[in-house]
Protein backbone atom coordinates (compact mmCIF):
# COMPACT_ATOMS: atom_id res chain seq x y z
CA UNK A 1 0.00 0.00 0.00
CA UNK A 2 2.96 2.32 0.62
CA UNK A 3 4.22 2.30 -2.98
CA UNK A 4 0.99 3.67 -4.56
CA UNK A 5 0.79 6.36 -1.88
CA UNK A 6 4.38 7.37 -2.56
CA UNK A 7 3.61 7.47 -6.27
CA UNK A 8 0.61 9.76 -5.69
CA UNK A 9 2.64 11.97 -3.34
CA UNK A 10 5.45 12.14 -5.90
CA UNK A 11 2.99 13.10 -8.63
CA UNK A 12 1.51 15.85 -6.45
CA UNK A 13 4.99 17.23 -5.62
CA UNK A 14 5.97 17.23 -9.32
CA UNK A 15 2.66 18.93 -10.20
CA UNK A 16 3.20 21.57 -7.51
CA UNK A 17 6.75 22.30 -8.68
CA UNK A 18 5.62 22.45 -12.32
CA UNK A 19 2.79 24.81 -11.42
CA UNK A 20 5.16 27.06 -9.47
CA UNK A 21 7.68 27.27 -12.32
CA UNK A 22 5.07 27.84 -15.04
CA UNK A 23 3.31 30.45 -12.91
CA UNK A 24 6.60 32.29 -12.43
CA UNK A 25 7.34 32.23 -16.17
CA UNK A 26 3.95 33.00 -17.64
CA UNK A 27 1.97 34.97 -15.11
CA UNK A 28 4.18 37.97 -14.33
CA UNK A 29 1.80 40.32 -16.13
CA UNK A 30 -1.27 38.57 -14.75
CA UNK A 31 0.06 38.96 -11.22
CA UNK A 32 0.29 42.73 -11.57
CA UNK A 33 -3.15 42.91 -13.15
CA UNK A 34 -4.73 40.70 -10.49
CA UNK A 35 -3.05 42.62 -7.69
CA UNK A 36 -4.47 45.85 -9.11
CA UNK A 37 -7.94 44.28 -9.07
CA UNK A 38 -7.60 43.23 -5.42
CA UNK A 39 -6.17 46.51 -4.15
CA UNK A 40 -8.08 48.57 -1.58
CA UNK A 41 -7.97 52.31 -2.25
CA UNK A 42 -9.91 55.40 -3.11
CA UNK A 43 -9.00 58.42 -5.18
CA UNK A 44 -9.67 60.64 -8.10
CA UNK A 45 -8.48 59.63 -11.53
CA UNK A 46 -8.00 61.73 -14.68
CA UNK A 47 -8.36 59.68 -17.87
CA UNK A 48 -7.78 60.79 -21.43
CA UNK A 49 -7.53 59.49 -25.00
CA UNK A 50 -6.07 61.18 -28.08
CA UNK A 51 -7.14 59.56 -31.34
CA UNK A 52 -6.95 60.90 -34.88
CA UNK A 53 -6.57 64.49 -33.70
CA UNK A 54 -9.50 64.19 -31.27
CA UNK A 55 -8.80 64.44 -27.55
CA UNK A 56 -11.32 63.38 -24.89
CA UNK A 57 -10.62 63.68 -21.18
CA UNK A 58 -12.60 62.95 -18.05
CA UNK A 59 -12.27 62.77 -14.30
CA UNK A 60 -13.73 60.06 -12.13
CA UNK A 61 -13.88 59.26 -8.43
CA UNK A 62 -12.92 55.68 -7.69
CA UNK A 63 -13.33 53.57 -4.58
CA UNK A 64 -11.95 50.07 -4.91
CA UNK A 65 -12.66 47.30 -2.44
CA UNK A 66 -13.30 43.54 -2.50
CA UNK A 67 -12.56 43.32 -6.23
CA UNK A 68 -15.28 45.86 -7.01
CA UNK A 69 -14.86 49.47 -8.06
CA UNK A 70 -17.36 52.18 -7.24
CA UNK A 71 -16.76 54.76 -9.97
CA UNK A 72 -18.48 57.87 -11.09
CA UNK A 73 -18.65 61.56 -10.77
CA UNK A 74 -21.28 63.60 -9.00
CA UNK A 75 -24.27 61.59 -7.78
CA UNK A 76 -24.13 58.93 -10.53
CA UNK A 77 -22.04 56.08 -9.15
CA UNK A 78 -21.69 52.66 -10.69
CA UNK A 79 -20.46 49.44 -9.07
CA UNK A 80 -18.25 47.45 -11.41
CA UNK A 81 -16.18 44.31 -11.03
CA UNK A 82 -16.13 40.51 -11.23
CA UNK A 83 -18.35 40.51 -14.30
CA UNK A 84 -20.96 42.79 -12.76
CA UNK A 85 -22.16 46.32 -13.35
CA UNK A 86 -24.78 48.11 -11.29
CA UNK A 87 -25.63 51.78 -11.73
CA UNK A 88 -26.75 52.76 -8.23
CA UNK A 89 -29.30 55.25 -9.56
CA UNK A 90 -30.75 52.65 -11.95
CA UNK A 91 -30.62 49.28 -10.15
CA UNK A 92 -33.06 47.58 -12.58
CA UNK A 93 -30.33 47.47 -15.20
CA UNK A 94 -27.77 45.58 -13.09
CA UNK A 95 -25.98 42.84 -15.05
CA UNK A 96 -23.83 39.89 -13.97
CA UNK A 97 -21.85 38.01 -16.61
CA UNK A 98 -20.85 34.38 -16.24
CA UNK A 99 -17.47 34.03 -17.97
CA UNK A 100 -16.91 30.51 -19.27
CA UNK A 101 -13.57 30.69 -21.09
CA UNK A 102 -10.45 32.44 -19.86
CA UNK A 103 -7.87 34.04 -22.14
CA UNK A 104 -4.21 33.21 -21.73
CA UNK A 105 -1.80 36.15 -21.64
CA UNK A 106 -0.42 36.89 -25.09
CA UNK A 107 3.22 35.81 -24.96
CA UNK A 108 4.17 38.69 -27.23
CA UNK A 109 4.14 40.85 -24.08
CA UNK A 110 7.22 41.08 -21.87
CA UNK A 111 7.65 42.83 -18.56
CA UNK A 112 10.45 45.37 -18.12
CA UNK A 113 11.30 48.29 -15.85
CA UNK A 114 10.89 47.88 -12.12
CA UNK A 115 12.39 51.24 -11.05
CA UNK A 116 11.28 52.43 -7.63
CA UNK A 117 10.15 55.98 -7.01
CA UNK A 118 7.74 57.88 -4.74
CA UNK A 119 4.17 59.14 -5.32
CA UNK A 120 1.89 60.57 -2.62
CA UNK A 121 4.67 59.73 -0.15
CA UNK A 122 4.45 56.04 -1.04
CA UNK A 123 6.94 53.75 -2.70
CA UNK A 124 5.97 52.96 -6.28
CA UNK A 125 7.30 50.65 -8.97
CA UNK A 126 7.22 51.44 -12.72
CA UNK A 127 6.38 48.47 -14.93
CA UNK A 128 6.68 48.51 -18.72
CA UNK A 129 4.69 46.05 -20.80
CA UNK A 130 6.65 45.55 -24.00
CA UNK A 131 5.56 44.07 -27.33
CA UNK A 132 8.26 43.31 -29.90
CA UNK A 133 10.63 45.82 -28.27
CA UNK A 134 8.01 48.62 -28.14
CA UNK A 135 6.58 49.76 -24.81
CA UNK A 136 2.79 49.42 -25.15
CA UNK A 137 1.80 50.18 -21.57
CA UNK A 138 3.57 51.77 -18.60
CA UNK A 139 2.09 51.35 -15.15
CA UNK A 140 3.17 53.03 -11.91
CA UNK A 141 2.10 50.76 -9.05
CA UNK A 142 1.88 51.46 -5.34
CA UNK A 143 3.99 48.65 -3.89
CA UNK A 144 1.94 48.47 -0.68
CA UNK A 145 -1.57 48.18 -2.11
CA UNK A 146 -0.87 47.01 -5.68
CA UNK A 147 -3.04 49.87 -6.97
CA UNK A 148 -2.14 51.44 -10.32
CA UNK A 149 -1.49 55.15 -9.80
CA UNK A 150 -0.57 56.02 -13.37
CA UNK A 151 -1.04 54.25 -16.69
CA UNK A 152 0.10 55.24 -20.17
CA UNK A 153 -0.73 53.33 -23.36
CA UNK A 154 1.31 53.75 -26.54
CA UNK A 155 0.72 53.07 -30.22
CA UNK A 156 3.10 51.07 -32.44
CA UNK A 157 5.29 54.17 -32.98
CA UNK A 158 5.67 54.78 -29.27
CA UNK A 159 3.25 57.74 -29.15
CA UNK A 160 1.08 57.95 -26.07
CA UNK A 161 -2.61 57.85 -26.98
CA UNK A 162 -4.21 57.12 -23.60
CA UNK A 163 -3.35 57.86 -19.98
CA UNK A 164 -4.83 57.73 -16.51
CA UNK A 165 -3.44 59.53 -13.45
CA UNK A 166 -4.51 59.35 -9.83
CA UNK A 167 -4.58 62.97 -8.73
CA UNK A 168 -5.71 62.05 -5.24
CA UNK A 169 -5.12 58.71 -3.53
CA UNK A 170 -5.75 57.01 -0.20
CA UNK A 171 -5.06 53.34 0.65
CA UNK A 172 -8.55 52.79 2.04
CA UNK A 173 -12.12 52.77 0.72
CA UNK A 174 -14.35 53.88 3.56
CA UNK A 175 -18.06 53.14 3.19
CA UNK A 176 -17.66 51.02 0.09
CA UNK A 177 -18.31 47.77 1.95
CA UNK A 178 -21.98 48.79 2.28
CA UNK A 179 -22.42 48.56 -1.49
CA UNK A 180 -20.41 45.48 -2.46
CA UNK A 181 -23.26 43.01 -1.97
CA UNK A 182 -26.02 45.37 -3.08
CA UNK A 183 -28.19 44.81 -6.11
CA UNK A 184 -30.18 42.12 -7.87
CA UNK A 185 -28.42 41.25 -11.06
CA UNK A 186 -29.73 39.94 -14.37
CA UNK A 187 -27.42 36.99 -14.97
CA UNK A 188 -25.97 36.85 -18.49
CA UNK A 189 -25.04 33.34 -19.63
CA UNK A 190 -22.79 32.66 -22.61
CA UNK A 191 -24.46 31.42 -25.79
CA UNK A 192 -24.00 27.74 -26.64
CA UNK A 193 -23.09 28.64 -30.22
CA UNK A 194 -21.62 31.93 -31.32
CA UNK A 195 -22.24 33.59 -34.70
CA UNK A 196 -19.57 36.26 -34.18
CA UNK A 197 -16.06 35.52 -35.53
CA UNK A 198 -13.76 33.25 -33.50
CA UNK A 199 -10.97 35.79 -33.70
CA UNK A 200 -9.78 39.02 -35.28
CA UNK A 201 -6.19 40.24 -35.47
CA UNK A 202 -4.33 38.80 -32.50
CA UNK A 203 -7.49 38.68 -30.40
CA UNK A 204 -9.61 35.60 -29.91
CA UNK A 205 -13.23 35.18 -28.95
CA UNK A 206 -13.56 34.37 -25.26
CA UNK A 207 -17.35 34.28 -24.78
CA UNK A 208 -20.45 35.32 -26.70
CA UNK A 209 -23.68 36.56 -25.11
CA UNK A 210 -27.10 37.81 -26.20
CA UNK A 211 -27.38 41.59 -26.59
CA UNK A 212 -30.22 44.11 -27.08
CA UNK A 213 -32.19 44.11 -30.38
CA UNK A 214 -31.42 40.40 -30.89
CA UNK A 215 -27.77 41.24 -31.43
CA UNK A 216 -24.89 39.03 -30.41
CA UNK A 217 -22.10 40.23 -28.13
CA UNK A 218 -18.64 38.72 -28.58
CA UNK A 219 -15.95 39.46 -26.01
CA UNK A 220 -12.30 39.31 -27.12
CA UNK A 221 -8.95 39.84 -25.41
CA UNK A 222 -5.26 39.15 -25.85
CA UNK A 223 -4.77 39.08 -22.08
CA UNK A 224 -4.02 42.81 -21.82
CA UNK A 225 -6.31 44.79 -24.12
CA UNK A 226 -9.93 43.78 -24.76
CA UNK A 227 -12.93 44.66 -26.85
CA UNK A 228 -16.59 43.79 -27.33
CA UNK A 229 -18.10 43.28 -30.77
CA UNK A 230 -21.87 43.68 -31.11
CA UNK A 231 -23.28 42.18 -34.31
CA UNK A 232 -26.81 43.23 -35.33
CA UNK A 233 -28.83 41.71 -38.14
CA UNK A 234 -29.71 44.20 -40.86
CA UNK A 235 -28.62 47.76 -41.35
CA UNK A 236 -28.98 50.07 -38.37
CA UNK A 237 -28.33 53.76 -38.80
CA UNK A 238 -24.84 54.56 -37.56
CA UNK A 239 -24.42 57.83 -39.47
CA UNK A 240 -26.11 60.01 -36.85
CA UNK A 241 -24.26 58.73 -33.80
CA UNK A 242 -23.49 61.63 -31.49
CA UNK A 243 -19.86 62.83 -31.69
CA UNK A 244 -19.10 60.38 -34.49
CA UNK A 245 -15.96 60.89 -36.58
CA UNK A 246 -15.03 59.33 -39.92
CA UNK A 247 -12.17 56.82 -39.77
CA UNK A 248 -10.79 55.16 -42.90
CA UNK A 249 -8.94 51.82 -42.93
CA UNK A 250 -7.71 50.42 -46.27
CA UNK A 251 -10.14 52.72 -48.07
CA UNK A 252 -13.19 51.59 -46.04
CA UNK A 253 -15.13 54.16 -44.04
CA UNK A 254 -15.98 53.58 -40.36
CA UNK A 255 -17.56 55.82 -37.73
CA UNK A 256 -15.61 56.25 -34.48
CA UNK A 257 -16.70 57.74 -31.18
CA UNK A 258 -13.81 58.68 -28.92
CA UNK A 259 -14.35 58.33 -25.16
CA UNK A 260 -11.81 59.13 -22.43
CA UNK A 261 -11.09 55.43 -21.74
CA UNK A 262 -12.30 53.63 -24.87
CA UNK A 263 -13.01 53.99 -28.56
CA UNK A 264 -16.16 52.91 -30.42
CA UNK A 265 -16.09 51.84 -34.07
CA UNK A 266 -19.39 51.38 -35.96
CA UNK A 267 -20.12 50.29 -39.50
CA UNK A 268 -22.65 48.68 -41.82
CA UNK A 269 -21.56 45.49 -43.56
CA UNK A 270 -23.82 44.08 -46.33
CA UNK A 271 -26.07 42.04 -44.01
CA UNK A 272 -25.14 43.23 -40.57
CA UNK A 273 -24.30 46.24 -38.46
CA UNK A 274 -21.27 46.09 -36.17
CA UNK A 275 -20.44 48.13 -33.08
CA UNK A 276 -17.04 47.54 -31.52
CA UNK A 277 -15.84 49.08 -28.25
CA UNK A 278 -12.52 48.54 -26.55
CA UNK A 279 -9.25 49.87 -25.24
CA UNK A 280 -7.05 48.61 -28.10
CA UNK A 281 -4.15 50.67 -29.47
CA UNK A 282 -4.85 52.10 -32.97
CA UNK A 283 -2.64 49.57 -34.82
CA UNK A 284 -4.33 46.62 -33.04
CA UNK A 285 -7.73 48.06 -33.91
CA UNK A 286 -6.80 48.38 -37.58
CA UNK A 287 -5.75 44.70 -37.61
CA UNK A 288 -9.04 43.73 -35.94
CA UNK A 289 -11.39 45.57 -38.29
CA UNK A 290 -9.40 44.25 -41.28
CA UNK A 291 -10.34 40.70 -40.17
CA UNK A 292 -14.04 41.47 -39.72
CA UNK A 293 -16.69 41.92 -42.44
CA UNK A 294 -15.93 45.19 -44.25
CA UNK A 295 -18.32 48.12 -44.69
CA UNK A 296 -20.39 47.81 -47.84
CA UNK A 297 -23.76 47.13 -49.45
CA UNK A 298 -25.23 44.25 -51.45
CA UNK A 299 -26.30 45.01 -55.02
CA UNK A 300 -29.97 45.90 -55.50
CA UNK A 301 -31.06 42.47 -56.82
CA UNK A 302 -29.55 40.54 -53.92
CA UNK A 303 -30.98 43.08 -51.46
CA UNK A 304 -34.47 42.73 -52.93
CA UNK A 305 -34.21 38.91 -53.01
CA UNK A 306 -32.97 38.73 -49.41
CA UNK A 307 -35.64 41.08 -48.14
CA UNK A 308 -38.43 39.18 -49.89
CA UNK A 309 -37.30 35.59 -49.36
CA UNK A 310 -34.79 35.81 -46.57
Amino acid at each position, binding site marked *: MIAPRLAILGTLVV*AAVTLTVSAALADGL*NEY*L*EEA*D*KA*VYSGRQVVGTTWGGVQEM*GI*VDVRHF*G*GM*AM*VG*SGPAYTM*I*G*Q*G*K*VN*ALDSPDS*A*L*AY*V*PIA*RAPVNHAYDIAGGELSTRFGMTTKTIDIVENGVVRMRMVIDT*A*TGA*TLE*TEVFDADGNRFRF*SNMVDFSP*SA*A*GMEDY*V*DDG*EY*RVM*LPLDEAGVPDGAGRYRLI*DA*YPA*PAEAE*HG*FYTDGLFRF*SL*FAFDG*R*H*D*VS*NIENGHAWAVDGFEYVTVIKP*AAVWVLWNAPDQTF*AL*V*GDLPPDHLEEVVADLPRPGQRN*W*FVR*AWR*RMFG
Partner: protein
Amino acid sequence: MAGVNPLAYRREELFSAFLDGELTKAEAEFVNEVLAGDEEAMEEFRGIQQVRRALRMLPDLEIPGWLLPDGHLGEQLSAYLDGELSADEQRRVSDHVISCADCRAELHDLDRARIAVRSLPGVETGQFDQIPVLPRSRRRRAVAAGSIGIAAAVVVILGLAFGGQQQPSITLDDLTSQHIARASAEPGFAVFPAGIEISAP
Protein backbone atom coordinates in the same frame (compact mmCIF):
# COMPACT_ATOMS: atom_id res chain seq x y z
CA MET B 1 -0.62 34.65 25.65
CA ALA B 2 2.36 36.03 27.62
CA GLY B 3 4.23 38.66 25.59
CA VAL B 4 1.29 39.41 23.23
CA ASN B 5 -0.03 42.96 23.35
CA PRO B 6 -3.82 42.45 23.29
CA LEU B 7 -4.42 45.90 21.76
CA ALA B 8 -1.95 45.29 18.92
CA TYR B 9 -3.45 41.82 18.39
CA ARG B 10 -6.94 43.32 18.20
CA ARG B 11 -5.72 45.94 15.71
CA GLU B 12 -4.20 43.27 13.46
CA GLU B 13 -7.46 41.33 13.56
CA LEU B 14 -9.37 44.50 12.68
CA PHE B 15 -7.08 45.25 9.72
CA SER B 16 -7.45 41.70 8.39
CA ALA B 17 -11.23 41.86 8.74
CA PHE B 18 -11.19 45.27 7.03
CA LEU B 19 -9.30 43.84 4.06
CA ASP B 20 -11.74 40.90 3.93
CA GLY B 21 -14.69 43.30 3.93
CA GLU B 22 -16.06 41.77 7.12
CA LEU B 23 -16.40 44.94 9.22
CA THR B 24 -19.52 46.93 9.92
CA LYS B 25 -19.64 50.46 8.60
CA ALA B 26 -18.80 51.88 12.04
CA GLU B 27 -15.85 49.51 12.47
CA ALA B 28 -14.57 50.34 8.98
CA GLU B 29 -14.81 54.05 9.72
CA PHE B 30 -12.88 53.46 12.94
CA VAL B 31 -10.13 51.67 10.99
CA ASN B 32 -9.99 54.54 8.51
CA GLU B 33 -9.61 57.03 11.35
CA VAL B 34 -6.82 54.96 12.89
CA LEU B 35 -5.03 54.73 9.53
CA ALA B 36 -5.38 58.43 8.85
CA GLY B 37 -3.93 59.52 12.17
CA ASP B 38 -1.30 56.94 13.05
CA GLU B 39 1.76 56.42 10.85
CA GLU B 40 2.74 53.29 12.80
CA ALA B 41 -0.69 51.77 12.24
CA MET B 42 -0.42 52.57 8.51
CA GLU B 43 2.93 50.77 8.37
CA GLU B 44 1.38 47.75 10.09
CA PHE B 45 -1.59 47.86 7.69
CA ARG B 46 0.72 47.89 4.67
CA GLY B 47 2.72 45.04 6.18
CA ILE B 48 -0.46 42.95 6.44
CA GLN B 49 -1.34 43.82 2.84
CA GLN B 50 2.10 42.72 1.66
CA VAL B 51 1.87 39.39 3.51
CA ARG B 52 -1.56 38.79 1.97
CA ARG B 53 -0.25 39.64 -1.48
CA ALA B 54 2.61 37.18 -1.04
CA LEU B 55 0.14 34.48 0.06
CA ARG B 56 -2.07 35.12 -2.92
CA MET B 57 0.84 34.65 -5.30
CA LEU B 58 1.38 31.07 -4.09
CA PRO B 59 0.26 28.67 -6.81
CA ASP B 60 -3.12 26.99 -6.43
CA LEU B 61 -2.98 23.21 -6.46
CA GLU B 62 -6.08 21.87 -8.15
CA ILE B 63 -7.63 18.97 -6.25
CA PRO B 64 -8.55 16.18 -8.66
CA GLY B 65 -12.31 15.81 -9.05
CA TRP B 66 -12.25 12.14 -8.12
CA LEU B 67 -10.97 13.03 -4.63
CA LEU B 68 -13.99 15.21 -3.97
CA PRO B 69 -17.55 14.19 -3.13
CA ASP B 70 -20.28 15.18 -5.62
CA GLY B 71 -19.72 18.94 -5.54
CA HIS B 72 -22.47 20.09 -7.89
CA LEU B 73 -24.35 23.21 -6.94
CA GLY B 74 -27.99 22.11 -7.21
CA GLU B 75 -30.37 24.67 -5.77
CA GLN B 76 -27.65 27.31 -5.50
CA LEU B 77 -27.84 27.69 -9.28
CA SER B 78 -31.42 28.87 -9.10
CA ALA B 79 -30.57 31.36 -6.35
CA TYR B 80 -27.63 32.49 -8.48
CA LEU B 81 -29.88 33.21 -11.45
CA ASP B 82 -32.27 35.11 -9.21
CA GLY B 83 -29.44 37.24 -7.83
CA GLU B 84 -30.10 36.02 -4.30
CA LEU B 85 -26.52 35.04 -3.39
CA SER B 86 -23.95 37.14 -1.58
CA ALA B 87 -20.92 38.41 -3.52
CA ASP B 88 -18.73 35.61 -2.11
CA GLU B 89 -21.29 32.93 -2.98
CA GLN B 90 -21.71 34.39 -6.48
CA ARG B 91 -17.95 34.25 -7.01
CA ARG B 92 -17.85 30.62 -5.81
CA VAL B 93 -20.70 29.65 -8.13
CA SER B 94 -19.10 31.50 -11.09
CA ASP B 95 -15.77 29.77 -10.49
CA HIS B 96 -17.48 26.38 -10.26
CA VAL B 97 -19.58 26.91 -13.38
CA ILE B 98 -16.46 27.77 -15.39
CA SER B 99 -15.00 24.32 -14.76
CA CYS B 100 -18.12 22.13 -14.41
CA ALA B 101 -19.92 21.30 -17.66
CA ASP B 102 -22.82 19.61 -15.78
CA CYS B 103 -23.62 22.69 -13.72
CA ARG B 104 -23.17 24.91 -16.76
CA ALA B 105 -25.73 22.84 -18.67
CA GLU B 106 -28.09 22.93 -15.69
CA LEU B 107 -27.67 26.70 -15.46
CA HIS B 108 -28.57 27.01 -19.15
CA ASP B 109 -31.66 24.82 -18.65
CA LEU B 110 -32.77 26.84 -15.64
CA ASP B 111 -32.28 30.10 -17.53
CA ARG B 112 -34.21 28.82 -20.55
CA ALA B 113 -37.06 27.66 -18.31
CA ARG B 114 -37.11 31.03 -16.58
CA ILE B 115 -37.27 32.88 -19.90
CA ALA B 116 -39.99 30.51 -21.19
CA VAL B 117 -42.14 31.09 -18.12
CA ARG B 118 -41.72 34.86 -18.44
CA SER B 119 -42.72 34.82 -22.09
CA LEU B 120 -45.94 32.79 -21.63
CA PRO B 121 -48.81 34.73 -23.22
CA GLY B 122 -52.00 35.64 -21.37
CA VAL B 123 -55.05 33.47 -22.17
CA GLU B 124 -57.27 34.96 -24.91
CA THR B 125 -60.71 33.91 -26.11
CA GLY B 126 -60.87 32.34 -29.59
CA GLN B 127 -62.19 34.28 -32.62
CA PHE B 128 -62.63 31.27 -34.97
CA ASP B 129 -66.32 31.95 -35.70
CA GLN B 130 -65.57 35.38 -37.16
CA ILE B 131 -63.50 34.41 -40.23
CA PRO B 132 -65.18 36.32 -43.14
CA VAL B 133 -66.36 34.37 -46.21
CA LEU B 134 -66.14 36.19 -49.56
CA PRO B 135 -69.67 36.19 -51.18
CA ARG B 136 -69.93 35.16 -54.91
CA SER B 137 -71.56 38.48 -55.89
CA ARG B 138 -68.41 40.33 -54.90
CA ARG B 139 -66.08 38.33 -57.14
CA ARG B 140 -65.59 41.24 -59.60
CA ARG B 141 -64.62 43.65 -56.93
CA ALA B 142 -62.27 41.01 -55.60
CA VAL B 143 -60.53 40.75 -59.01
CA ALA B 144 -60.12 44.54 -59.06
CA ALA B 145 -58.80 44.49 -55.55
CA GLY B 146 -56.40 41.71 -56.58
CA SER B 147 -55.03 43.88 -59.42
CA ILE B 148 -54.49 46.76 -57.03
CA GLY B 149 -52.77 44.32 -54.66
CA ILE B 150 -50.39 43.15 -57.40
CA ALA B 151 -49.55 46.75 -58.29
CA ALA B 152 -48.94 47.52 -54.63
CA ALA B 153 -46.70 44.47 -54.35
CA VAL B 154 -44.63 45.69 -57.32
CA VAL B 155 -44.25 49.07 -55.64
CA VAL B 156 -43.19 47.34 -52.41
CA ILE B 157 -40.66 45.17 -54.27
CA LEU B 158 -39.18 48.22 -56.00
CA GLY B 159 -39.11 50.00 -52.67
CA LEU B 160 -37.33 47.09 -51.08
CA ALA B 161 -34.81 46.93 -53.90
CA PHE B 162 -34.03 50.60 -54.20
CA GLY B 163 -35.10 52.05 -50.89
CA GLY B 164 -32.59 52.13 -48.05
CA GLN B 165 -34.61 50.15 -45.49
CA GLN B 166 -32.84 50.91 -42.20
CA GLN B 167 -33.29 49.53 -38.74
CA PRO B 168 -33.38 52.08 -35.90
CA SER B 169 -30.22 53.83 -34.69
CA ILE B 170 -28.00 52.04 -32.22
CA THR B 171 -27.77 53.54 -28.73
CA LEU B 172 -24.39 52.98 -27.15
CA ASP B 173 -25.37 53.20 -23.47
CA ASP B 174 -26.71 49.65 -23.02
CA LEU B 175 -23.85 48.22 -25.04
CA THR B 176 -21.34 50.13 -22.90
CA SER B 177 -22.77 48.51 -19.77
CA GLN B 178 -22.49 45.07 -21.34
CA HIS B 179 -18.89 45.67 -22.39
CA ILE B 180 -17.86 47.06 -19.01
CA ALA B 181 -19.54 44.24 -17.09
CA ARG B 182 -17.92 41.48 -19.14
CA ALA B 183 -14.53 43.22 -19.26
CA SER B 184 -14.53 43.51 -15.47
CA ALA B 185 -14.42 39.71 -15.19
CA GLU B 186 -10.91 39.75 -16.69
CA PRO B 187 -7.74 40.53 -14.74
CA GLY B 188 -6.57 44.14 -14.98
CA PHE B 189 -9.93 45.85 -15.09
CA ALA B 190 -8.79 48.22 -12.33
CA VAL B 191 -5.84 49.39 -14.45
CA PHE B 192 -8.25 51.19 -16.78
CA PRO B 193 -11.93 51.79 -16.14
CA ALA B 194 -12.72 50.31 -19.61
CA GLY B 195 -15.01 52.79 -21.24
CA ILE B 196 -16.88 54.06 -18.21
CA GLU B 197 -18.72 57.24 -19.08
CA ILE B 198 -16.68 59.97 -17.46
CA SER B 199 -17.58 63.62 -17.21
CA ALA B 200 -15.25 66.31 -18.50
CA PRO B 201 -13.08 67.85 -15.77
